[in-house]
Each structure stands twice: as C-alpha cells, then as structure tokens.
C-alpha cells in the first residue's frame, strides 16, 4: 500500500538534481484528516555532495522544518508530522541549503472528513514507530501479523488505547495554572541596587575628598566602568527557566510509552537568540510567540523552540510527545486491580475511581500500591496523582535550563464491562 501511495517527484533544479534526490510520501494509506497528525516520510539521497540544510514540509498553513545532514554517497529517511484544521489535498516538501531551495516535491493526499469513519490499511512495512502515524484512522487493517518491532507495537498500542479512552474526549484531571514568570525588572534589580549604593558611596567620597578632585573623578570613572561591566555580564551565565504544568498519561494496554502534554513558559536570563530543545524524539513544540509559526526540529529529530528577546523575556509554548517515564504499574487479577507507584518519588494528591481505597494522606510512596475493584460506572476511569518536576527534560545550546512546576500523572484504566 505504501508503494502504491508513494508520490515521487523529481528535483526541480538541474544543478541540485545531480547532487540530491528527494522523494516523499504522506499520510497513512495516503489519507489526511483535519485536526489529526499527518505523517510525511521523506528520503534524501546524497549522490555526489554532502547535504546539510533544512527539510521543510507544508500542509496548508502548517509547516515544520527539520535540520538534516546527509553525507555523500548515502540515503537517509526522515519522518515529519503536520497537523492543521485547514487541510489541503497536497503536501509540499522542500529541501533548503544555505538559504536557497534546492529540491521540491508535491505529494497528493486523499482527504477524509473529521466526522467520517476512517478505516485505513497498513499493508506492509516499515511500520511507523509513532502513534501519530495512525492518528487519522478510526480503525486499522493490518497486513499479516502486524509489526514485529517493539516500537511499532507500542505505537499501535498507544493509538488503540487513545481511541478506547475517547481520544480528545478522554478524562483528564483539572489542570493547575503554569507558575507565573518573574518580572523582568526583578532579574536586574540586584545589579541596579548595588550600583546605586556604589554611587551613593561616591557621593560621600566627594564630600570627604575636598581638594582631591583627581581621586573623586577617578573613583567615579572606576565605579561607572565596574557598573557597566556588571550590567553587561548580568544574566549571561544564568539558566533559562522553564515553568510548566504537565500531564503524563499512561493507558491500560497502551504499550510502554507515556503520552506527555506540557503547557509551559520559558524565561530567558539575557538578551539574544535561544534554541530550547525538548528531549522527546516523538513529539512537537508549538510556540505561541516564537520567531515564526513553523514547528522546528534539530538534526537529531528533537523538537526545538527558537526565540529571541531581552533579559526576562518569556515565550509560551506547549509540548506534545511521548516518553519512557512511568509513574504507575497496574496489574489485573480477575476483578481486582492493583495500582503501584513505580517512580522514584512520592506521588501526591492522588485520586482514585470508585472501588479503590485511597490512602488517607492521598500520597502514594515509591513502591506503595493500592488495590480495588473498579465499578462499571465510568466510561474512562482514571487514577490521578501529582508530582513535582517535568516528565521531559529541556536543554538549551548555551545555557543551563532549570524547570519549575508539577506533573499530573494519569492512568487510564480499562473500563469495566456492564
């Protein structure tokens, strides 16, 4: 099926045609759907020259950009994901090198309506390793025995679990607000305070050093120079602060991956351009006030947020992705269900569905478990606890990153049949 759907276009520029061949196909079973992730698989073949540039995929207003490096002679494959409500029946894939477009491919799509029931076929490999590849489908028809790799099995398991839990209508805990960023003036106030005190001390010197003007003027010049140096250096070695509220969702029979959703702000300690990276290969950052609207990925496939601003400037963003982080291990024994904390930290403010005896202090310590018999009341029964910290780490090219905030860890239990 993939082969049938493979839409191959030749490179546009004759000069680049000798050096690089770009091929692409898009969509599971060639299908795109409004509001659902669309996988775009791109292969770049570097024939005679190394390729270093940006791979850009566009679907209507949605655009992603990934840094690519392909040494010659070799062929590399990349997987990009796009999502938009304003869909088109074609996806454009471009390769840019040194700021110039060197190749372009247009990939046709079949559009399925958001309310239609989409039964999509996956006939043969390579099997996608991200649940987002299957997002357009309501039902899957797998070829043969299905995938053999653990990653692809996990991806399908997570997709199935999401559909079972109700997809976007699934149960989620009420979310706390993202911690407010510091006022930018607060970041510079220590330097300002010390400098003002130094100038006040100078005033005393002027009063006492009458007749020794050279001392007074020299001292002033030294204090101004020192103050300028401190003002120039302020914040340059400080950390970027990411403040977040995260949700980490595990699913019964949902594979080994945890679905992560993060609402966050990043506050920068100095002026300049910042490249914040989230440590999830299967995810995306959506920046509310980033430099542009495109989703960006580095050459290793990690989502990045590019921002620039002054001391104390803040960017808002969301992260959607998956992680190997797990807080719960749930086992079923007949009608009884056992929920254990398998993380290294105490889970706080835990809430359980009817049928479970919650701990009196609502805490679940590492290794502690709760047992119960869930009742057939909820469509999507969930266990919810909270922990300090983020399920995904962030890094920045030139600065350390500290995180502040909490994560709601959620386990979607299999609904009990009536």
């Amino acid at each position: 099926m993939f082969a049938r759907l493979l839409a191959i276009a030749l490179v546009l520029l004759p000069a680049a045609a000798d050096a690089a061949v770009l091929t692409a196909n898009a969509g599971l079973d060639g299908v795109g759907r409004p509001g659902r992730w669309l996988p775009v698989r791109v292969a770049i073949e570097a024939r005679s020259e190394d390729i270093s540039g940006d791979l850009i995929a566009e679907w209507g207003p949605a655009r992603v950009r990934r840094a690519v490096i392909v040494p010659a002679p070799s062929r590399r494959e990349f997987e990009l994901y796009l999502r938009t409500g304003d869909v088109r029946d074609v996806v454009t894939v471009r390769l840019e090198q040194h700021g110039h477009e060197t190749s372009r491919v247009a990939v046709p799509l079949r559009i399925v309506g958001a309310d239609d029931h989409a039964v999509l076929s996956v006939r043969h490999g390579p099997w996608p390793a991200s649940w987002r590849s299957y997002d357009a489908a309501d039902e899957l028809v797998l070829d043969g025995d299905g995938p053999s790799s653990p990653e692809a099995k996990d991806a399908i398991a997570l997709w199935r679990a999401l559909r079972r839990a109700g997809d976007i209508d699934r149960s989620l805990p009420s979310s706390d607000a993202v911690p407010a960023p510091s006022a930018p003036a607060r970041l510079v106030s220590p330097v300002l305070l010390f400098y003002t005190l130094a100038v006040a001390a100078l005033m005393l010197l002027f009063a006492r050093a009458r007749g020794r003007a050279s001392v007074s003027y020299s001292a002033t010049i030294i204090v101004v120079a020192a103050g300028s140096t401190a003002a120039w250096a302020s914040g340059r070695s400080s950390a970027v602060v990411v403040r977040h509220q995260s949700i980490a969702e595990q699913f019964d029979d949902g594979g080994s991956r945890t679905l992560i959703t993060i609402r966050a702000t990043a506050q920068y300690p100095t002026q300049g351009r910042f490249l914040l990276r989230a440590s999830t290969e299967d995810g995306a950052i959506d920046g509310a006030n980033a430099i542009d609207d495109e989703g960006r990925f580095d050459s290793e496939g990690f989502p990045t947020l590019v921002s620039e601003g002054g001391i104390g400037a803040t960017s808002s963003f969301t992260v959607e992705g998956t992680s190997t982080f797990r807080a719960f291990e749930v086992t079923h024994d007949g009608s009884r269900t056992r929920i254990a904390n398998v993380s290294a930290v105490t889970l706080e403010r835990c809430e359980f569905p009817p049928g479970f005896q919650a701990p009196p202090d609502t805490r679940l310590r590492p290794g502690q478990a709760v047992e119960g018999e869930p009742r057939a009341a909820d469509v999507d029964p969930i266990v919810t606890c909270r922990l300090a910290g983020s399920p995904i780490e962030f890094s920045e090219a030139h600065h350390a990153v500290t995180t502040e905030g909490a994560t709601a860890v959620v386990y979607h239990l299999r609904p009990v049949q009536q």
Partner: protein
Amino acid sequence: MNTLVRRELQLIARERAFGIALLAHVSIMTGLLLAWGPDPLRSMQLVVLGLLLPWTAARVLATRPLPVPGVRALAAMLALALVVSAAFPVMLLADRMAGAGLAHALRGELPAQILSAGVAVLVLLWRRLHSDRVIGWIGATVTALLLVALRIAGGLQR
C-alpha cells in the same frame, strides 16, 4: 589651559551639588526602569537631564572671571558628561531588557552627551545675559527642555 581646566574641575568636585547630581541621576533612572520597564527610558532620561543638568551647572560652576575664554565651558562639559555617564549601566541594562546590546546602548548615549555639552554652554550664556543665578538657571532649564522636546518630537516623527 590644562592647569586652568583642572582647577575648574577641582572646584566643581568640591561642590556638594555635583555628588547629589550623580546620585540623583542614577537613582531616578533606576526607579524609572524598575517602575516602567525599558521602553520609554531614553526619552525619560533626556527630560530628567533637561531638568537636572542646568541645576547642576548653575550650582557647581564658579562665577569669578577667568583669563582664558572657554576654560569654564570645557570643564563644565567634562563634569556634566560624567553625570550623564553615571547612568550608563542603568541604560545598558534597559537596552538589554529590550533585546538590544552594548552597541545600541553606546549609540543611545550620544543624544544625552550632546545635551550635556549644550547645557554647559547654555548655562554660561544665560549667565552672560543675566547676572542673577536663579534666572540664569531657569532660563537654561527652559531652553534645555525645549531642545529635549524638539529631540523627542523629531524622534516620534521618525
């Protein structure tokens, strides 16, 4: 000439008003930055200097006649330039908060330094026009504020 300028600078340094001007300029700019943020700070600084520098010059410049013309003006320019420069660290931080760097802060310093040189000349000119120190100070202040208003209006038009 050099000795005379040094002598004048020494006299200025002896005046308490000079130290007060330094501290006032830094304190006011710090307060404005913390209260309003970095955006309107350059224009506010010119208004502050338009008020502060004529007062400083009127208070610190001696009145006795000098044998070489221009010595007092030169000393006044140097002293007032130092008052303006005292707030440079504050202005640099403001520019960095607005996303600009050292070069932008240095460029932004130029209008303030030109104003300080102008005020030094204005105060001495007003002194020649009127022997009363207070009237000279008020006249220099009004003229300086007019120059500042023209500068800000020109900046707004651009």
